[in-house]
């Protein structure tokens, strides 16, 4: 596979990765700290015969994504926290109508208008169903720009595989940082999955297709829900992803995702210099959460220490995974404050 290495900002790398995954349709409304995705798309998509549209709102955006996805084509949008809140009704419709598409939420401090600094306080919204009804998003959290590229591509593939929306949950740090990245080659559009059995393309010499999340009959709607749940069960079995760092002989396990997962590696190295053996468990798929491996690792440590840029959201999944085998402690910064390795070290050492 031919690849090239470039210095890129996270937001731009995500946009280019999407195009290389075969995405030719982007709809979006500007919001910091991710507007570079829209700007990049507005420049790049016309070069590849794609369509960029700046919408009138995130409400319109998510529904344009719904319409485009219903034609079976790869489509994405990106936003930041308040914008993703605004999209939730549409996200629920898309999940209910079983349409593949990709969302990017470059999370900023909240609640409300909050600020524009990196945060992880939208974890519940992302993983527990931000909209109404029993649905799940496939949620992936990158911790480097390279990984953002890979996960963006994976997000499109998973969305197609499960006919379900996928979400890249990043934060302002990932969006704004520059790093060298290797980009994959352009995907040949003719190799994209065939959706001609359900897509809305005009019923030319076939029976009309109907794409909806609607069923007036509760038994019928329950059957639709069973189908969704079967997919989710399969995703839980097949799509748990994580990274481990020095977990082999760790006496304590540090857990964090995205930007925090990256910072925790320096924490582990610092503590190792002081003779304290710790390791990092970094969930990559936030849904499905990698409970299985976390449980195994928890068996071998004295306690688990979870760090987040929130008041403690993922820690609830960590507790579910650990199932009370060992204590689970938490350290968090809120409002867009990124914790330093030193302050995490001292918070950790207080627990010893």
């Amino acid at each position, binding site marked *: 596979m031919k690849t090239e290495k470039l210095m890129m900002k996270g937001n731009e790398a995500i946009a280019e990765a999407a195009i290389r995954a075969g995405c030719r349709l982007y709809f979006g409304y500007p919001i910091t700290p991710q507007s570079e995705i829209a700007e990049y798309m507005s420049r790049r998509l016309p070069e590849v015969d794609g369509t960029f549209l700046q919408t009138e709102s995130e409400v*319109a955006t998510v529904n344009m994504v719904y319409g485009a996805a219903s034609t079976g084509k790869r489509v994405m949008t990106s936003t930041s926290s308040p914008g993703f809140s605004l999209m939730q009704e549409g996200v629920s*419709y898309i999940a209910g109508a079983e349409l593949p598409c990709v969302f990017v939420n470059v999370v900023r401090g909240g609640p409300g208008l909050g600020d524009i600094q990196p945060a992880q306080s939208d974890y519940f919204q992302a993983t527990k169903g931000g909209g109404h009804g029993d649905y799940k998003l496939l949620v992936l959290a990158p911790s480097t720009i390279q990984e953002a590229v890979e996960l963006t591509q994976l997000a499109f593939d998973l969305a197609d595989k499960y006919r379900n929306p996928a979400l890249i949950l990043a934060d302002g740090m990932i969006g704004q940082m520059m790093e060298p990245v290797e980009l994959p080659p352009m995907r040949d559009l003719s190799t994209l999955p065939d959706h001609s059995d359900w897509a809305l393309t005009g019923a030319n010499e076939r029976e009309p297709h*109907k794409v909806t999340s609607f069923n007036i009959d509760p038994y019928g709607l329950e059957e639709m829900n069973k189908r969704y749940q079967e997919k989710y069960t399969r995703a839980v079995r097949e799509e748990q992803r994580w990274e481990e760092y020095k977990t082999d002989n760790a006496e304590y396990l540090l857990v964090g995702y995205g930007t925090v997962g990256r910072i925790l590696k320096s924490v582990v190295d610092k503590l190792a210099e002081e003779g304290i053996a710790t390791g990092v468990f970094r969930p990559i798929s936030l849904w499905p959460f990698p409970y299985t491996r976390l449980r195994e690792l928890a068996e071998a440590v004295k306690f688990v220490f979870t760090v987040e840029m929130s008041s403690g959201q993922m820690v609830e999944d960590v507790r579910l995974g650990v199932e009370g085998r060992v204590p689970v402690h938490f350290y968090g910064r809120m409002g867009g404050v990124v914790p330093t390795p030193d302050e995490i070290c001292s918070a950790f050492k207080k627990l010893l």
Partner: protein
Amino acid sequence: METKIAFGGPKSLSGKEFTYCPGCHHGIVHRLIAEIIDELGIQGKTIMVAPVGCSVFAYEFFDVDGTVAPHGRALAVATGMKRALPDRVVFTYQGDGDLAAIGTAETVHAANRGEKLTTIFINNAVYGMTGGQMAPTTLLGQKTTTTPYGRRAKNDGYPVHISEMLSTMVGVAYLERVTVSTPQDIRNAKKAIRKAFLAQIKNIGFGLVEVLSTCPTNWGMSPVEAQRWLLENMTKEFPLKVFVDKVGD
């Protein structure tokens, strides 16, 4: 009134029995749209977007590919489809609550972008599906379940005139307000719908036909009374008119 399609009806109707009340205009308008789709020979490349409202099942009634948009968002959904498949014909079918209250922004901006889309807008001055609450187009003094003393401007503002609003927009290629009360009105409405489709097919711009329609059930009238009330009251507030015609003959 027309609540059932006797077979032998337009090819572009599926034949599924309509869910509309006796005397409701939704069914007549469906039939006109289907006839136009047949006559233009576009059934195999048409995609329709149904709203949330009494016509939520419209995606089942038309024998074309279709979906149901979230309440008010039909024109955003249709925009996404049309941008993905520019050579298909995409139309939305929307009520007044859908198009002129919750979906006003999507309506105005789709028109403003001159999306090559066609919209059939059913203005029945009431929220039919949810049981007869005030609509943005409810007339002053008109009683609904949420204006029990009649709509009062001081509290509820004035009826929204969508066609007049959109008529200033350069992206609009065809815009007419019609009704389907008399056979002559029906013939005229059909001509308007055809032009609203042609505005799209000829790539000129956005086409919309506002149809003043009855809701006998929520108006608390017989079909005949409803017909008369529409002609005597609604057409005064909402004059029948061609607002924009860039399609020609």
